[in-house]
C-alpha cells in the first residue's frame, strides 16, 4: 500500500475511533444514570437495555481493531430481567467496559486532533514561502524559527519535513496503543480465558472418552462376531474331524478343508480389525510412509507432498493418518474429483495437513458424519479444521495441529 493511502486510512481510523469514543459517552452516562435510578427502584429495564447497547457497541470496537478480532468476554446472559441484571452486575466485563469507555473517551479525540494537527503543521511549514510572499508577517514564528525573511521562510521547510516524519509515524503508534487498550480492557481476562479453556477441555475430554469407548465396543463386536466365531466353528470342525477320522475319512477331509477356509477368513477379518486400530504401515514407516500407502491404495490419483523433518508423536500420526484417509475417501466418493492433492508440512510447532480436490465442492460439515468426526478426533489435540468447499469446487480442507518441537 502506498504511503499516502496508508496515512489516509490511518487518519480515518483515528477519526472513527474518536467518533466511537464520543458515541460511547451516551451508554456510559446512561449506564451511570440508569444504575442510579435502579438503586431507587425504577429504571431496571432501562439499565438492561443500556448494558445490552453498550455490549453491541463495544463488539464493533472489538472487531474494528487491526489484527485478529478481540473475543467477547461476556458471560452468557439469559432468563428474566432480574437474573439478566444479576449476571451482568456480577460480570467483571461490565465494569471493564465502563472503564474502557471512559479511557477511550479521554484519549481517542485527543489522538485524532493531534494526528490531524501535526499534518496541518507540516502543510503550513511547506507553504510558508508562499504565505510569506502573499502576506508577510501573517506568521512570524514556525517551531521557534523567526519568519522575518523569505530565506527563513524557505528554511522552515526543513523542520516541516522533520515534523512530517513524526506526522507519518504518529497515527500508527496511536492506533497501536488503541489496539493494546482494547485488548487489555475488552478482551477476556486471564482468569476468564482459563475458565473458558477448562470448559473446552472438559468438553473434549468427555468426547474423547465417549469416542474411545464406542471404538472399543466396535472392536469387541467385530472380534466377537468375526474372528472369534470363526475360531469356534473351526474348533468344532476339527473336533468332529478327529472323531470321524477312523470311520469316515472322506467326511473328515471335508471338515478339515472347511476349517482351513475358516482360518483364512478369520485372518483376513483380524487384518481389517488391526488396520482400523492402527495401520501397520504407520507403525513401520510413520506418517510419510502411511500417507504414501494411502495414496497408492486410493481410488483416484493422489499428489503427495510431505515435508516432515522427523516423526511425530504416535497419537498425532494416527490422528492425521485417519483424517487424511477420511478426506481422500470423501473426495473419491462424493466429490467427483479427478485428482486429490495432499500436503503435509511442519512449520515450527505446527503441523499442517491440507487436502485439496478438484471436485464439485459443496461439502457441508454440518451434514454427514465424516467432517464432524474429524473435528471430534482432532479436538483433543487442539486441532483446527477449516473447510472451504464452494458449490462448483474445489474443496480444500486445512488441518492444523500443534506439536511439540
Amino acid at each position, binding site marked *: 500500500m502506498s504511503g499516502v493511502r496508508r496515512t489516509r486510512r490511518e487518519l480515518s481510523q483515528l477519526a472513527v475511533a474518536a467518533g466511537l469514543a464520543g458515541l460511547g459517552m451516551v451508554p456510559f452516562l446512561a449506564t451511570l444514570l440508569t444504575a442510579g435510578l435502579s438503586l431507587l427502584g425504577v429504571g431496571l429495564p432501562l439499565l438492561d437495555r443500556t448494558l445490552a447497547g453498550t455490549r453491541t457497541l463495544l463488539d464493533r470496537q472489538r472487531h474494528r481493531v487491526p489484527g485478529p478480532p478481540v473475543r467477547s468476554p461476556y458471560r452468557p446472559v439469559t432468563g428474566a430481567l432480574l437474573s439478566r441484571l444479576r449476571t451482568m452486575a456480577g460480570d467483571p466485563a461490565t465494569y471493564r467496559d465502563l472503564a474502557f469507555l471512559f479511557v477511550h473517551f479521554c484519549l481517542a479525540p485527543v489522538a485524532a486532533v493531534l494526528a490531524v494537527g501535526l499534518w496541518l503543521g507540516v502543510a503550513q511549514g511547506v507553504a510558508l514561502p508562499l504565505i510569506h510572499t502573499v502576506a508577510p508577517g501573517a506568521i512570524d514564528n514556525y517551531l521557534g524559527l523567526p519568519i522575518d525573511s523569505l530565506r527563513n521562510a524557505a528554511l522552515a521547510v526543513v523542520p516541516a519535513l522533520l515534523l512530517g516524519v513524526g506526522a507519518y509515524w504518529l497515527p500508527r503508534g496511536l492506533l497501536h496503543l488503541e489496539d493494546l487498550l482494547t485488548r487489555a480492557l475488552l478482551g477476556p481476562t486471564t482468569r476468564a480465558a482459563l475458565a473458558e479453556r477448562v470448559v473446552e477441555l472438559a468438553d473434549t475430554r468427555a468426547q474423547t472418552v465417549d469416542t474411545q469407548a464406542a471404538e472399543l465396543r466396535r472392536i469387541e463386536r467385530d472380534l466377537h462376531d468375526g474372528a472369534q466365531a470363526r475360531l469356534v466353528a473351526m474348533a468344532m470342525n476339527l473336533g468332529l474331524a478327529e472323531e470321524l477320522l477312523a470311520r469316515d475319512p472322506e467326511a473328515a477331509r471335508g471338515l478339515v478343508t472347511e476349517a482351513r477356509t475358516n482360518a*483364512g477368513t478369520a*485372518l483376513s477379518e483380524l487384518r481389517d480389525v488391526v488396520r482400523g486400530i492402527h495401520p501397520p504401515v504407520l507403525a513401520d514407516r510413520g506418517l510419510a510412509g502411511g500417507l504414501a500407502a494411502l495414496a497408492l491404495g486410493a481410488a483416484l490419483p493422489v499428489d503427495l507432498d510431505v515435508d516432515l523433518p522427523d516423526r511425530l508423536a504416535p497419537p498425532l500420526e494416527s490422528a492425521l493418518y485417519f483424517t487424511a484417509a477420511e478426506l481422500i475417501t470423501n473426495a473419491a466418493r462424493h466429490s467427483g474429483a479427478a485428482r486429490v492433492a495432499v500436503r503435509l508440512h511442519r512449520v515450527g510447532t505446527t503441523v499442517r495437513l491440507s487436502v485439496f480436490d478438484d471436485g464439485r465442492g459443496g461439502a457441508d460439515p454440518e451434514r454427514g458424519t465424516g467432517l464432524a468426526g474429524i473435528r471430534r478426533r482432532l479436538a483433543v489435540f487442539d486441532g483446527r479444521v477449516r473447510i472451504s468447499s464452494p458449490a462448483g469446487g474445489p474443496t480444500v480442507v486445512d488441518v492444523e495441529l500443534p506439536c511439540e518441537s
Partner: protein
Amino acid sequence: MRVVIAEDLALLRDGLIRLLTAYGDEVVAAVETGDELLAALLEHRPDVAVVDVRLPPTHTDEGLRAALTARERVPGLPVLVLSQYVEQLYARELLSDGAGAVGYLLKDRVADVAQFVAAVHRVAGGGMAMDPEVISQLLARPARAAPLGRLTPREHEVLALMAEGRSNGAIAQRMVVTEKAVSKHINSIFAKLDLRDCDDDHRRVRAVLTYLDA
C-alpha cells in the same frame, strides 16, 4: 535347496522349518532379528530366504529392510517376504531393482502348503510370487496412468496372473485359453507398456512394476 528363515515367533519359525524340510529343502539358518538376517544372508548366500517383515528389535519393517539391503549387496538374491498384511508400497520396493526373484505373500498362504512351497521354489528360480491381495488391491482402483488405460480387460487379467508369478501354461489353464493366446496377450502387454528390450523374466517384473507405479 538351501533356505534361510527369519521369523521371531518360535511357533511359526518351527512350523516353517518343519514344512520346508518335509519338502526336501535344507534350512541352513533360522534367525530372529534383522541384523542376524543380514549377516546370515551374506554368509550363507542361500538359494532363497523366507523373511517375516516384522522382526525385533523395532518390530516394524526390520525384515524387509534387511532383505533389501542384502539384495543391494548381492543383486538378485532370492527373497520371499511374509507378512500379516500386504502393502503395495512394500511390493513396489521389493520389485523396484528390477532383478526379480522376489515374493511377497500373506502369512495365510502358508496354509496351502503345496502352493506355498511352489512359490518358495519359484522365487528361488528367479521368478515372482505376488500375493493375490496385492493384485486385487490394484484391480480395485481404476487404472490411472495412460499406458495401463490402454490395456484391455483381458490383458489386465493376464498381467495380474503374471504378477502372482504364474507361468504362461498356468495362466492359460486358469483363463481357459491356449498357451499361444496367452503369449499373444503378453507380447501385446509388453508392447503397450513399452518394454521391448530386456529378457522375458525382467520384462515381467517391469510390467508388474508399471502396474504398481500407476
